[in-house]
């Protein structure tokens, strides 16, 4: 067995992709290989969202302070930072969930494909920019109904027909859950295990075919095996859509992120390729934080 020595990492960095590979905790996994390839080829990324001087305050308390950031499809952006630094707030502002919090105020702009998201109808925006939460929160319905939920319009009874079913199955497959639940899609979702529930929530979000997927600490309530499955999933999804993930697990950021944004007390301190921010942070605050675990 290879002795893991995360401490040694920053100092011995030489070759790039090997290095990354070596740091990754799951180098032998198929997804990892796929990813390695993706990184070696120039992966095409497209800017989808952008915040400009975004400030969010709860009453007097500024939670996000003049943050300018881009979100690109084709890559995973990880938001890291100590507890309370505003990661969740920033994430929730991207699909305007933050405006549901009483007392929340916003300054600055957020755009989706160049259009101000505050000019969009919120439901429309949220359909394109969906979110998965820290706690798995399936609705108290069956598995099928959970995934179908976003697809079925209004109160009309859906055609139980093949189209809907097809879409549900596809979403479940993309979330890597289909195998496990194929037998009984009528099973109540709340009886699934935590990891399965979380993947169901992802499937539910994927079913509406979002363009940006926001994940707020999606693995913090899960065991390592479920965590691995979800990390793998993020990689795969990032090929097609933009994925933003909040995590306070730096190893996880290592494993999944292409770009990392470090926040501290509401400020966006540093944002750049994962390797650079995690290995060779420029800002002293980032360095302190990352060193807290790494060096």
């Amino acid at each position: 067995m290879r002795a893991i020595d995360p401490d040694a990492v920053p100092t011995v960095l030489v070759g790039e992709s090997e290095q990354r590979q070596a740091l990754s905790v799951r180098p032998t996994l198929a997804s990892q290989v796929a990813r390695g390839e993706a990184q070696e080829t120039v992966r095409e990324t497209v800017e989808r969202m952008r915040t400009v001087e975004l400030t969010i305050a709860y009453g007097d308390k500024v939670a996000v302070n003049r943050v300018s950031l881009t979100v690109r499809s084709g890559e995973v952006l990880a938001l890291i930072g100590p507890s309370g630094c505003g990661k969740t707030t920033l994430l929730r502002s991207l699909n305007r969930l933050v405006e549901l919090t009483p007392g929340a105020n916003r300054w600055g702009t957020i755009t989706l494909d160049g259009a101000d998201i505050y000019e969009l109808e919120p439901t429309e925006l949220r359909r394109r920019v969906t979110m998965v939460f820290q706690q798995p929160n399936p609705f108290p319905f069956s598995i099928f109904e959970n995934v179908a939920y976003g697809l079925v319009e209004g109160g009309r009874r859906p055609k139980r027909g093949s189209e809907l079913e097809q879409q549900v199955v596809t979403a479940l497959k993309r979330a890597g859950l289909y195998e496990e639940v194929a037998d009984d899609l009528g099973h109540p979702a709340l009886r699934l295990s935590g990891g399965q529930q979380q993947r169901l929530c992802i499937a539910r979000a994927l079913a509406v075919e979002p363009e940006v997927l926001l994940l707020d600490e999606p693995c913090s309530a899960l065991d390592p095996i479920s965590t691995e499955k979800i990390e793998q999933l993020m990689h795969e999804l990032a090929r097609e859509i933009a994925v933003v993930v909040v995590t306070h697990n730096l190893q996880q950021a290592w494993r999944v992120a292409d770009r990392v944004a470090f926040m501290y007390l509401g400020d966006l301190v540093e944002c750049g390729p994962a390797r650079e921010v995690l290995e060779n942070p420029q800002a002293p605050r980032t360095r302190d934080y990352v060193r807290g675990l790494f060096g």
Partner: protein
Amino acid sequence: MAALMARVRGLLRTGAGAFPPRAGGVADAPANPADLRAERTLRGLAVLVLALIAAMLAFVFAKAWPSFAHNGLAWFAAGGNVDRQLTAIFNSPADPDRWVYEIRAWPLLYATALVTVGAVILALPLALLAAVFITEFAPRSLAAVLRAVVRLLAAVPSVVYGLLGILVLVPFVDHYLISDARKASVAGVVQLDGSSVLVATIVLTVMIAPIMIAITCDALAAVPRLWLEGALALGVNRWRVMRTVALRAVRPAIVAATVLAVGRALGEAIMLSMVSGSVAFAPNPLDGLTFFFEPARPLAATIVDNAEGLSVKPFAQTLYSFAAVLLVSTMALSFIGWRLRRSLALPGVGR
């Protein structure tokens, strides 16, 4: 950062700025039309009910006004005999200018307070202990039975309690608890015939305790298990945990339960008119034990007993003045309850 905070504060104060602060996140973008429709409809319903309530208050107070106006503050005082006064009002002459209004309602107010407070004082400890018993100490099968029992008792119609009171309890008290000597001791002042403060209070207690138990039980069940287990894990015994964590956390619920129970007690008419003795007498605590056997007639029971006379205008106005007093007391009660609940609420506990 500090500069920005100052700016934020400034903005909050002046309400100016690129994106003026919004309460509750009213979007500056087009809201969903379905949402707007739903909100408007539902708000309409709420306003409708509010209007109804306002109408009720206005109506009751308008109706009651002449009685208060004619009596002034003396309305609340003692003096003369209420039943005589009511009879006189009922027999008012036809000419509105000569309608009789004189009433000194103190004995009714006193009876209301006496019976209500008595019942709450009995019911509160009973309810708290029983709720703790059910949630913590009862064997599980017994707890399940008790929960059902409590809900059953809470749902028994008051007329059934009244029936039992008048056919069982009143005769029992009359026969076995009131001696002839006791009756003789107050002869000429008041008659003791079993319908009494005692019976009224006991039946009322049995009526309101289940309500309090049910609410307290629900609240106790909602106390996070983590708190209880956290306390147990510190080596604190189960009774103390219930007393110092669970009951403390549910104090707002206890207040709510008490307010509800007091409200029920204040407004209970049928049952009290059946068992409370139907004499507008003010029981005197100085009479010692006899006090408990003296009759008393609360406001609500007076309204029901005399509902037949609603068609006589001055009499109806007098009855409405009783109703108005009841309304004011229940409203004051829920206001006090609300304030109390707010000041007792612990951070992180629901409600």
